[in-house]
C-alpha cells in the first residue's frame, strides 16, 4: 500500500484497487509526493494531503468513484483547476480528491441556439474561443485561462464584466449531476424554465457540497460591436466613487468599471509601467461596450462626467494596444502586491456602492490601528471590494494581526449591508464569517438543501457551513445521532 493511503483514517486500500482497475493505474494517485500537488487550491495557507487523487475521464467513471465512496463512507472533494481563492477545493485528509481535469471536451457548439455543452474540465477561455468571433461567454474571472467551467459553476464565478453581463448562474441553462450516492440527474438543458424546481439555479455556487457536475449547458451571447475604454485619475477614492455613482445613476451600464487606490496604483505601475501617475489618489477604468452608436453616445457622456468631477487626467484608449495597456495595470494589481509586502490576505467583500466612502474610511482606520498597509482594488459597479491586507509573514505575529484586521474589514462590509464574498466563495476561508451574515435559522435552511442532495454529507465536507450540522431523517421517527449524544453537533 502507498504512503498516502496508509495515513488516512479510512482504509482506502480496497477502493484504490477498484479505481485502478476501472480508471487505469496512472489515473489513481497515492504516492505522497504526487499527492502534494493537490494539497491546496489557489489559497495556499490551507493545505491538506488527500488520501488519494482520482482522475476520471467520463461521467461513468465519476459515478463509479462516487458510488464506491458512498458504499465505503468515504468523503470526497471535487476539483477543477484548483485556482479558487477560498480553499473550496482543499482536500479532506481521509478522503479522495476527484480531479475533473481530464473531462475537458466541448461536447457541442450550437451557435444557432447560442448554447454550448461542455464537460466540467473545459477552461473558461476555451468556451469563448469555441464560439468566436461572433459570440462570447461573458463571465470572465481573471483566472480564465486556467480556471474550469466546473469550478466556475461551483463558485458562481463573476469577473470584471459581470456588472453588466451577470455571473455564471445567469449563463447555466442545464446540468448533468452525479449525486453523492452515484445517481445521475439531468436538470434543465438548452431551453429555459424547465418543469419543476430551479435546482440548476440552486446548484450553481454550491461550492462542490451537493454533487459533481459532469455536463454543463451554457448560454453564449453575440460579441458587442464596439468597445470604448478610458482610465481617469482622481485625487481620492471618494471622488472616484462619486463618479461611479453619477455614471450609474445617469442610466449608463458600463461593461466594466474598476477602481484602484493609490497603494495599488503604485504597486501596479512599478510592476507594469502602464503609465499610471503614481501620485494619483484613485484610478477609475471605465469600459463601455455595445452597438457602435450606443457606445459613442454613452462614452461622451462618461468623459463629461469625469471632467466635471475634476479628474486630474483622462486617458482614452485609441486602439486595442492602448486598451490592453490600461487593463494591464488593473489586472496586475494582485501580482504586484509582492512589491509592497511578501504576503497578503485578499478579501472579497461586497458593499452597497453608495457606502463606499464610509467603508473605505473604516478600512483606512483599521490599517492605521493594526499598523498594516491595505490596498484596495474594487469592482466598482457592483460594490465588490478586494482589500489586500499586506504583511510580512517572517515578522512574529504579523500574519495573525493581518488576519484579524482582514476579519474586521469583512465585518465592516457586512455591517454596511453587504456580503462576505462576491465571487471567491466561502470555502474554508470565510466560513467563520458566515454567522456575521446569516442567522442560525438561515444556516438551517441552507442545510435542508444540502441534506436533500447529500444526507450523509460526503461531498466537500467542512466547507461553507461554519459548524458541522447533521441531516435528520425525513420523514421518520427521531433518532439521536452519536455525535449529537456526545454533544459534538447540533441537530438541525
Amino acid at each position: 500500500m502507498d504512503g498516502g493511503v496508509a495515513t488516512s483514517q479510512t482504509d482506502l486500500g480496497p477502493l484504490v484497487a477498484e479505481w485502478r482497475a476501472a480508471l487505469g493505474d496512472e489515473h489513481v494517485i497515492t504516492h505522497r509526493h504526487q499527492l502534494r500537488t493537490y494539497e491546496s487550491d489557489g489559497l495556499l495557507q490551507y493545505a491538506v494531503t488527500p488520501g488519494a487523487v482520482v482522475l476520471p475521464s467520463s461521467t461513468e467513471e465519476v459515478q463509479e468513484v462516487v458510488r464506491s465512496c458512498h458504499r465505503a463512507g468515504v468523503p470526497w472533494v471535487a476539483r477543477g483547476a484548483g485556482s479558487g481563492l477560498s480553499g473550496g477545493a482543499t482536500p479532506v485528509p481521509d478522503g479522495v480528491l476527484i480531479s475533473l481535469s481530464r473531462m475537458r471536451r466541448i461536447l457541442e457548439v450550437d451557435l444557432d441556439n447560442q448554447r454550448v455543452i461542455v464537460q466540467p474540465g473545459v477552461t473558461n477561455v476555451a468556451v469563448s474561443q469555441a464560439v468566436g468571433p461572433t459570440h462570447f461567454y461573458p463571465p470572465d474571472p481573471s483566472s480564465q485561462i486556467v480556471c474550469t467551467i466546473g469550478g466556475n459553476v461551483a463558485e458562481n464565478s463573476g469577473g470584471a464584466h459581470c456588472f453588466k453581463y451577470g455571473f455564471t448562474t445567469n449563463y447555466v441553462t442545464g446540468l448533468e449531476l452525479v449525486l453523492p450516492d452515484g445517481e445521475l440527474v439531468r436538470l434543465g438543458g438548452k431551453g429555459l424554465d424547465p418543469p419543476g424546481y430551479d435546482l440548476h439555479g440552486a446548484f450553481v455556487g454550491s461550492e462542490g457540497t451537493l454533487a459533481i457536475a459532469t455536463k454543463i449547458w451554457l448560454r453564449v451571447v453575440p460579441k458587442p460591436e464596439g468597445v470604448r475604454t478610458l482610465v481617469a485619475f482622481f485625487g481620492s477614492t471618494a471622488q472616484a466613487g462619486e463618479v461611479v455613482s453619477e455614471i450609474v445613476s445617469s442610466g449608463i451600464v458600463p461593461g466594466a468599471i474598476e477602481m484602484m487606490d493609490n497603494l495599488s496604483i503604485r504597486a501596479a505601475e512599478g510592476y507594469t509601467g502602464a503609465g499610471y501617475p503614481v501620485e494619483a489618489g484613485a484610478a477609475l477604468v471605465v469600459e463601455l461596450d455595445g452597438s457602435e452608436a450606443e457606445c459613442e453616445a454613452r462614452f461622451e457622456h462618461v468623459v463629461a462626467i469625469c471632467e466635471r468631477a475634476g479628474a486630474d487626467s483622462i486617458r482614452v484608449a485609441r486602439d486595442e494596444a492602448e486598451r490592453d495597456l490600461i487593463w494591464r495595470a488593473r489586472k496586475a494589481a494582485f501580482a504586484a502586491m509582492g512589491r509592497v509586502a511578501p504576503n497578503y490576505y485578499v478579501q472579497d467583500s461586497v458593499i452597497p456602492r453608495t457606502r463606499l466612502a464610509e467603508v473605505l474610511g473604516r478600512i483606512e482606520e483599521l490599517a492605521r490601528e493594526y499598523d498594516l498597509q491595505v490596498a484596495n482594488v474594487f469592482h466598482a459597479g457592483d460594490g465588490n471590494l478586494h482589500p489586500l491586507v499586506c504583511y510580512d509573514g517572517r515578522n512574529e505575529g504579523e500574519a495573525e494581526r493581518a488576519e484579524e484586521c482582514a476579519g474586521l474589514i469583512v465585518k465592516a462590509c457586512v455591517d454596511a449591508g453587504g456580503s462576505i464574498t462576491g465571487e471567491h466563495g466561502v470555502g474554508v476561508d470565510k466560513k467563520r464569517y458566515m454567522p456575521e451574515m446569516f442567522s442560525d435559522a438561515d444556516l438551517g435552511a441552507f442545510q435542508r438543501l444540502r441534506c436533500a442532495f447529500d444526507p450523509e454529507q460526503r461531498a466537500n465536507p467542512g466547507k461553507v457551513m461554519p459548524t458541522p450540522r447533521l441531516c435528520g431523517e425525513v420523514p421518520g421517527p427521531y433518532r439521536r445521532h452519536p455525535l449529537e449524544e456526545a454533544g459534538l453537533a447540533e441537530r438541525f
Partner: protein
Amino acid sequence: MAVATAEMLVEELRRAGEEGTPVRFRGGGTKLGWAANRDAPERELSTAGLDQIIEHNAGDLTAVLEAGVPLARAQAAFAEAGQMLALDPPDDGATIGGIVAAGDSGPLRSRYGGVRDLIVGVQVALSDGTVARAGGKVIKNVAGYDLAKLFTGSLGTLGAILEVSVRLHPLPPATTTAAGGSGDPETIARAAREVAHAPLEYMGLDVRWGGGDGAVLARFGGAASREQADAAGGILARAGVEAQVVDDDESIWRVQRDGQRSADWAVVRVSATQTDLQGLFAAADRLGGRLVGRAPLGLCWVILQDRSPEESDAAIETLRRDYAAVVLDAPPGLTADHWGPLDPAARGLMRRVRERFDPAGVCNPGAAP
C-alpha cells in the same frame, strides 16, 4: 385568510404545519386558474397585508419588497427615480411574491433575464415556523446557497415568500420598436434569429404566430434606440420581413404580454429553442393554437383556443412529445398535469428537496413537482 403582518403569516403557517392542514398562499390572485392550482387547498393565506416597499436604494439600484406589494405600485415608485424592476409579466394586479412564486416573466426577459436573474435575496417562512433568509441585498454575493432561485417558480410548495430583494435597472427614457410580419413561418423564425445573433442590444425580441400569420418585434431603449431599431429593421428586411420602426410602441408589447394569458382557453409555456420556433409555429397551426415567444430564448406561450378540454389535453400531450411544456391557464375540464413529464431522477431529487423544506407536506401540495 388575510394576515396583517409577516409574523401572523408565519404563525398561521406554523399552525397549519402542526395540524397537517394544507394551505396555499395568495398574492394578487391572478394565477389561481393555473393547472397547478386546480386542487389547491381551501385554506388560503393571503399576503395582502405585507405590502411595504421596505427599501428602495436608488443609488445602488436595489430594492427590498414585501411579498404582497403589487408590481405595478413598485414600478411606479422606481420610475420616480428613473429606474425599473425589469420584469413585465402580463397580469396588472400581480404581486411581487406571486410573480416570484410563479417564476412569471414578460418580454423584458430577453434582455434582462427572468425573476431568477433579478432576485438577489429572499426571506421565507416554512411550515415548522422557521423564518430564514438567503442571499442579501447587494447585486453580487455568493455566500450560502441560492435559495432565492429555489423558491422562484416553486408555486408555494416549499414555503411562503415573505420578502424579496431585487436588482433594478435604469428605465430607458424612450423606446423604439422595429416590427414586421409575414405569413411564412420559416421567414419569421429566420428573421428573428438574425436579429438575435446581431450585435444589437434589444430590450425585447419577440415573435408571434397564429392562423397562418406571424410577426417579429425588436425593441430598443438605449441612448441610440432609433439607430439600433433602424439597424434591426434592415436585418428584418434582408430576411424577408418588411419592418416598420415605431416610437409609440407600448400597445404592440401589451399584445405580446396579453398573449401569455387566456380567460377561456388553455395556455401552455413551452421551453423551446431558437431553432425550434419554426416547428413550433407549425405545431401551433396543427393544434389550432396561437403563440407569443421570446425569440432569443425560445420560450413560448401557446394558447389552445376554440378547443374542447379533451382536445386541449390531447394537444398538450402532443406538444409534450417534443418539448417541455408547462400548463398555465387551465379551463374547467382540462386534466393535463401542470408540470408534465420529468426525468424520474430529477423528480426524485425535487421531492427530497420538498420533504426537507416542508416536511409536514402542507404547502400547496397539489402543485409540487
